[in-house]
């Protein structure tokens, strides 16, 4: 029993990342009808926003301390981050410690801008081109984006630690009446799950309860009619693209402490999140979220020892296996709408 709970918990944080990326992909696909292969790159850019903010915050002034010497006998150099000298040591250290959560606020405007530029500069010209062309051009864009990041940040993963308050593990089992230390779960993953739930909830609420969201939903259902009603739907869809970029970006920011960001992390996630989108059903937002969590949890269940003993290698292929079965038995995915991408 405790094993089952551990696996569900393990599946949740990976599932959250899948769900967030798939949600953004589906938003873009549902509104603009564009298959965006560069979405993984947006996730990666988000993670590097966290890295960048951390670097900015730790920019330091170097002073020499003549009373101490380093191992070479030269005067010891002491680095004091500017934030610490401006705000005092305690607050400054606190800000640096919390750089990853703070990076969300840093990332949102950047991702908005990136999304807006991408839509205006490139994607806009591909609405009328076939899906294959869209896939190819965004695939090219993903390569370009990741090479740019590689140029500035190098090819090695960069550690971006979570705030100290969240570094330990949480003894989840005690809450449920198990013995202590049976179900340990890192705090940050719990935070990530809560954060993902919050973002997903916010996106749904935005679409469901605001006038803007209503118009966007109407546009998803029937773009032409909304246009005939005199609403400039393209402008709103551009904004939705920026929003989707934001969702991918903040997902990346918060993921940075879980897996140290490197330039190809986007590509690694992209393939899986496409599988997630297709399993959930192209154009279905709840489907994307549901499939994200489902596949995340299935993946961690499949890596349980007795599963691996029963069917060797199942943990490696489960996601693809499920995807193949679902695609062949349910042509529209789990929750796909009728008429979307049916050929």
């Amino acid at each position, binding site marked *: 029993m405790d094993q089952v709970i551990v696996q569900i918990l393990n599946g949740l944080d990976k599932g959250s990342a899948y769900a967030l990326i798939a949600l953004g992909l589906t938003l873009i696909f549902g509104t603009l009808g564009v298959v965006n292969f560069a979405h993984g790159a947006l996730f990666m850019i988000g993670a590097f926003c966290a890295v960048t903010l951390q670097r900015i915050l730790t920019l330091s002034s170097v002073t020499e301390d003549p009373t101490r010497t380093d191992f070479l006998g030269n005067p010891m150099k002491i680095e004091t981050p500017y934030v610490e000298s401006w705000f005092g040591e305690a607050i400054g250290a606190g800000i640096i410690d919390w750089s990853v959560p703070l990076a969300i606020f840093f990332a949102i405007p950047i991702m908005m801008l990136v999304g807006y530029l991408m839509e205006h500069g490139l994607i806009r010209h591909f609405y009328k081109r076939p899906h294959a062309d869209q896939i190819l051009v965004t695939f090219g864009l993903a390569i370009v984006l990741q090479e740019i990041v590689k140029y500035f940040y190098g090819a090695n993963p960069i550690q971006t630690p979570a705030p100290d308050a969240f570094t330990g593990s949480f003894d989840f089992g005690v809450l449920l009446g198990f013995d202590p230390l049976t179900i340990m779960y890192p705090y940050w993953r719990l935070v990530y799950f809560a954060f993902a739930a919050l973002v997903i909830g916010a996106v749904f609420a935005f679409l469901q309860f605001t006038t803007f969201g209503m118009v966007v939903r109407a546009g998803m259902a029937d773009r032409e009619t909304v246009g005939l009603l005199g609403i400039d739907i393209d402008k709103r869809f551009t904004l939705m693209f920026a929003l989707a970029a934001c969702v991918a970006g903040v997902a990346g920011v918060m993921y940075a402490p879980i897996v140290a960001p490197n330039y190809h992390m986007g590509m690694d996630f992209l*393939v899986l999140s496409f599988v997630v989108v*297709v399993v959930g059903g192209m154009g279905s937002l709840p489907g994307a979220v549901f499939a994200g969590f489902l596949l995340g949890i299935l993946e961690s269940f499949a890596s349980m020892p007795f599963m691996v003993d029963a069917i060797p*290698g199942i943990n490696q292929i489960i996601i693809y296996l499920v*995807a*193949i079965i679902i695609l062949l038995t349910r042509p529209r995915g789990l929750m796909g709408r009728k008429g979307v991408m049916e*050929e």
Partner: protein
Amino acid sequence: MLGLRKKDAGLLLLVTVLTVMAPVLLNPFPVDSAMAQFNAGYPDLMQRFVIFGIFAIGFNILFGLTGYLSFGHAAFLGVGSYATIWMMKLLTLNILPGIFMAIVFAALFAVMVGYISLRRSGIYFSILTLAFAQMSYALAYSVLTPITGGETGLQIKPTDTPLLANLEPGEIGRASLFGLEMSQSSIIRMGGWEFTLNVGYYVCAMAMILAFYMAIRIFRSPFGMMLRAVKSNQNRMYYTGLNARPYTLAAFVISGMYAGLAGGLMVAMDTQVGPERMFWTASGEVVLMTILGGAGTLIGPVLGAGMIKYMENIVSKINDQILHTWFAFLPDGLEDAVVAMIYPFVGKGWHLTLGLMFMAVVIFLPGGLLEGGDRIRNAFRRKRTGKEDTAKQRTPAE
């Protein structure tokens, strides 16, 4: 000639001449000159040119003709590679049986994958093929280690004693074709130039010319016509009472066999294989090659393959010191600025150039580099005759 139209025969002849002369044509610079690093005429790279050419020709039969975008073609290449290396480990060091088995196994695997994947089309087809390829990769990497060697892959080792080869104990077997070793080459020196004629390269080149000839025949056959019909309008095909499935499956299997042939040749050249050959980025690479050169054209994919492999091996070697020597004639400050501007695009950053080039091709030249060539030629022709040639601008049927 050979059942080809005059134009196609000319194309085949051109390709034959180019591949046969490649060791000379690709080494235009004397060995000692500063430009020698642009020489691509060394066996290892030339072999890669033609092997990936074969791979791309095969991919193009599926994607270019039927429009089905497979994102998992590297799996067939991998299967072919494993089949060949096992033949060479167990049976004989002659490469022919190995390559034959590579094609057979790739075909069998392609029948299986194609039969299932072709139930869907569009992006679903892409995802299905991707899923199959990733599954093969993951399995080759982990569970199938006894067959695939897992992470380390398979090499020919001193302990391997193929049945039909008379090896001294401890001697490492080398791939050969009826006694002619693949690594054998003769070097011709002419003045400052040096040309390497390698046995392995010519074996690959023969295979590519043959593969190219087959591709021309397929493109011009009624079967190829059917495949084009699938691409342009599958529904209309159904309404005329034709079932598209057998045709698409045949195209899928044929292109899988081409991939198997490429995989087999790869092993025949370097006698080793690893699972990373099946990773999805390898499948993405062949897509890049085909699109870059021009999908649906005969020669385009080969050009694309050559271009990408050239960049991967030659452009990636340019480092900042070389750049500095090139621009040494400029004043110092300007020199640094120019080098700083170019440097991100060469050397380790060659992927960036590739990505930008690929995007530019998809945006401006959907027909690939060949379309670019056509446009330039048309522009010149128009200038000369002074009028538009309207015969070329056919209107589509719909």
